[in-house]
């Protein structure tokens, strides 16, 4: 198993309150699988990823990456937030190479590694530009490229396209699918957009209201590569109906 959540529970303790967020979560994700996690807003979806990236570091239960407990593992996972989080003071070139620089690469080498990807991510010609000069869609693509530059085969997405308008969102979804093919990445994708989840995933995990538990684990049997028209197919809509019901 690539990623495994074993009886994971998490409660946040405030000054005079406690917030039980995750309750006995068990998830298994195979290598190369694209798994989406959906659930009501505020149910603790993001917390799952925060645990994996060790942004939040105390919890009950265990998370295993390639069979090794998170605490012992020094495995890097790449993580993309809903906000692009591009640093305004770094050019696009310096933003997307950040993961390489942090892992100890020399600037020159990092630039060379990222070079072939600008075109693929629709960013060629914008390498020397500062993020605030780009449109929202381009910034998100740059953030995506930065996510791909993390030397890891595990990618975590936290509602990466939520702040993007519908037309661009579809483009970015398509884009993500194309980029993922051939990279053999294991992906955990958090979204509140049911359609997006079905369209992208091999499997969808539905979480309940807080404290979140897994209430459904749905395999998506749509063929790949996924195409736009599939969103209107009967199979697609059946899955959608089932998920909407599950969320109620």
């Amino acid at each position, binding site marked *: 198993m690539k990623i495994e959540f074993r009886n994971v529970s998490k409660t946040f303790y405030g000054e005079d309150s406690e917030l039980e967020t995750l309750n006995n979560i068990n998830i298994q994700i195979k290598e190369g699988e694209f798994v989406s996690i959906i659930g009501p807003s505020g149910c603790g979806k993001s917390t799952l990823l*925060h645990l994996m*990236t*060790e*942004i939040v570091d105390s919890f009950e239960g265990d998370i295993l990456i390639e069979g090794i407990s998170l605490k012992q593992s*020094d495995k*890097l*996972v*790449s*993580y993309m*937030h809903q*906000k692009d*989080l591009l*640093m*305004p*003071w*770094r050019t696009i070139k310096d933003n997307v190479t*950040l*993961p390489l620089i*942090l*892992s100890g690469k020399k600037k020159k080498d990092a630039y060379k590694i990222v070079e072939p990807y600008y075109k693929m991510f629709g960013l060629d010609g914008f390498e020397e530009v*500062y*993020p*605030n000069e780009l449109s929202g869609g381009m910034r998100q693509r740059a953030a995506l490229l930065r996510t791909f530059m*993390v030397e890891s085969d595990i990618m975590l997405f936290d509602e990466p396209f939520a702040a993007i308008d519908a037309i661009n969102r579809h483009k970015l979804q398509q884009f993500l699918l194309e980029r993922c093919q051939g990279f053999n990445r294991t992906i955990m994708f958090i979204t509140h957009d049911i359609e997006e989840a079905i369209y992208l995933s091999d499997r969808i995990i539905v979480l309940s209201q807080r404290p979140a538990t897994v209430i459904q684990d749905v395999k998506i049997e749509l063929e790949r590569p996924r195409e736009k028209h599939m969103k209107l197919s009967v199979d697609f809509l059946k899955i959608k109906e089932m998920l909407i019901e599950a969320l109620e």
Partner: protein
Amino acid sequence: MKKSTSTVKLKEKILPGLFITLLILFTELVIQIADIKAYILPKPSRVIGRLIEDRDVLWGHTVTTIQEALLGFVIAIVLAVIISVIMNRYKLLKLIFYPVLVISQTVPIIALAPLFLVWFGFGILTKVVVVVIVCFFPIVVSLVEGLAVVDQDMINLMKSLKAKPLDVFLKVQVPAVMPAFFSGLKIAVTYSIMGAVIAEWLGAQSGLGIYMTRAMNSFKADALFADIVIVVVVSVSLFRIIDFAGKKLMPWHKGE
């Protein structure tokens, strides 16, 4: 398009200058017509005459004041950086000392200055201390507030990339705080000359402040105004230098 923006720029540059020139001419005229005595309000032309006449003496005083101001300014920056970084790192210290800092700023420095003279003597130390106190506050406030609003998600992103704390500090916190820092610097640098002048009022060998006191004591209003003109010009120049440095150091930071 290009032409119109450049004419706007030209307007921005010319109009304020034109207005000031007109204001000076108007003052000249009013004083002339109303026949106001020179020791009450000197004509601008007399002030300019004084500036030219006393230029060697004034230059010496100006250099002294600039030295005091810049020394104090630099020390204030160093102190403010150290203290704000510590306060950002240890929230408890911020909780305790930040209010004290604010209170200390409300104490009228001019009332305490004579005491500084007793403590630190008539030399440069008193002036530098006053400048440091005046400049420290705007810088430390801008830094503390700036550090507090650094995007936590960006720091989390760095953590997810297993960045070392030093990397988080240098690559996120330092650049993120720069715009606020420079706003603080711009305010502080304009205060610095004023701080030095106030300190010199109380007693000094040389400096724009002591020249000012002498001018006042001998009712040489034209010399007083000449001095004021220098204070203004030097303060504005320092402001411009900081502004320019900020723009060079933060090419990403446009507007405002």
